[in-house]
């Protein structure tokens, strides 16, 4: 039921693409802050290649948005006020230490894989095509993050202690990934997506619980209620700082070609 001329269809499609694009760009940006600072040179090379995939995916979504009449992709990325961003809070948080960055990435990649799978038969064809290609790349990210998580969990000592702290710090942000800011019913109705947020979370929990077990980590329990919903434009100071940095050169002369 692809009805791109239906006003509401267009509206929720656009909203949903912003959510995905903004998630990806910020995660890729945060990843890239690790450049030159990873625990070893090998890790640096691997993490950077993941970061590039994320920014590449974001670019794809911004291009779709542009085709739907939204602003130029660069202006969307570098010239938008924080209140317009639709990412979940999890991806805007500062990097903290290695365990935090790895676990954040793991949590997000698992969510992303479920979201992408739920879009494999999306009624919007350009999205459907892109999603199929991205799933392949995301598969490797997820594998990479799961491997790290298991290693850090099983290592014992400082690594496991820090991993435990990272999980606790991330826990309140988990629910935010599954927010669709009120468009979820329309997304389903228009067959843009095949699962409800609750169904996605159930899948996510099942995958993560199995992994936690393999990593000898205990499950922290219920997810706290969301205090601020990034998907509704409610963001932390960390995002504002990030956007100032990311837009610094672009905004010095927004009309220039770079």
């Amino acid at each position, binding site marked *: 039921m692809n009805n791109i001329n239906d006003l509401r269809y267009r509206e929720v499609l656009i909203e949903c693409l912003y959510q995905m694009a903004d998630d990806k760009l910020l995660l890729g940006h945060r990843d890239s802050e690790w450049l030159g600072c990873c625990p070893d040179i090998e890790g640096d090379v*691997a993490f950077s290649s993941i970061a590039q995939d994320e920014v590449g995916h974001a670019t794809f979504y911004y291009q779709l948005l542009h085709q739907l009449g939204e602003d130029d992709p660069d202006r969307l990325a570098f010239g938008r006020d924080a209140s317009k961003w639709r990412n979940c809070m999890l991806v805007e948080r500062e990097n903290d230490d290695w365990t935090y960055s790895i676990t954040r990435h793991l949590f997000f990649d698992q969510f992303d894989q479920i979201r992408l799978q739920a879009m494999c038969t999306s009624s919007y064809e350009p999205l459907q095509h892109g999603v199929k290609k991205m799933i392949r790349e995301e598969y490797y990210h997820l594998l990479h993050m799961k*491997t790290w998580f298991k290693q850090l969990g099983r290592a014992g000592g*400082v690594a496991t202690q820090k991993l435990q702290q990272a999980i606790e710090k991330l826990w309140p942000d988990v629910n935010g990934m599954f927010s669709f800011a009120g468009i979820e019913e329309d997304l389903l109705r228009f067959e843009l997506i095949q699962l409800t947020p609750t169904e996605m979370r159930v899948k996510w929990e099942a995958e993560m619980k199995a992994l936690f077990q393999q990593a000898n980590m205990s499950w922290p329990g219920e997810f706290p209620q969301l205090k601020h919903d990034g998907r509704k434009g409610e963001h932390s100071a960390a995002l504002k700082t990030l956007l100032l940095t990311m837009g610094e*050169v672009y905004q010095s002369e927004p009309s220039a070609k*770079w």
Partner: protein
Amino acid sequence: MTEEKQYASFMERIRAGEKIEATDWMPIEYRKLLIKLIHMHAVSEIMGAYPEKEWVPRAPSLRRKLAIMAKVQDEMGHGQLLLRVVEDLSAPLGRTREELVSDIYHGKVKFHNVFHMEARTWADAGVIGWLVDGAAIINQASLLETSYGPYARVLKRICAEESFHMQHGENIILALAMGTDAQRQSLQTALDYWWESLLFFFGPQEVTPAAKQMMHYQIRLKTNEELRQKFLDKYVPRIQSLGLTIPDLSLRYDDSQKKWRYQAPDWHKFSQIVTQNKGPKSEERMLLRKKAHEDQQWVREAMRNHNISISSAL
């Protein structure tokens, strides 16, 4: 075979243009010269990632963001490949990867002068990609014929990637050169700042005893000055065609000598920067490397103890 005979047959192989491999017999002097050169090269790649790393978060378009991320990743990758070559060479001397990396912030290994300098603007990041990588290619391409096989093979791959870096830098530069007044001005300012460092990059004019030995063993085949002249051959016309002014009024091509005449860089200032890590950014970047390495030793330990290769999962 006596040591003397081994040495004679080794030199015979060098003269015949054969490649020496890691497990072959080699004079200790040859090994040490290789370690010195390749270790410095590896560390320069790693430290060379920092000036641009500073601009990765601020790249002004999605396309540039992706390109500069890829470029910095390549540089780290070069560092990794080269470190492996040094690791093999220094294993018989009892040195480990951990030490090869910590040598950086203990000041036990030098890195190129350009990577001690500040990248103040986006135009600086562009000039680094264009001219610093341009200089590096000239240097690295001249080493492709090196007598040490493992180094030659890694260089081949590095050179292929470096030519993309140069294009990336050139693209940034072209956009600025054809851009607004402020963009063109920032480009000229960047060139003014980097020029002297770029000339110094190739090293002193005189052939030092170590350089002489490296040429004796055909580890390297060209002198510093030959490489600098090549750089000028290639880039002076390109820079001028963009309407930029090279900050050296005395620069001219001497037809009778078939050589560029240029205002020599301040050798003393830059050698202080390199040997004593006294550049504007030396300390800050070495500290970053130290933090990355020492503060995250627990991560490497956690990995070692459990022995599943992370990178191979990718």
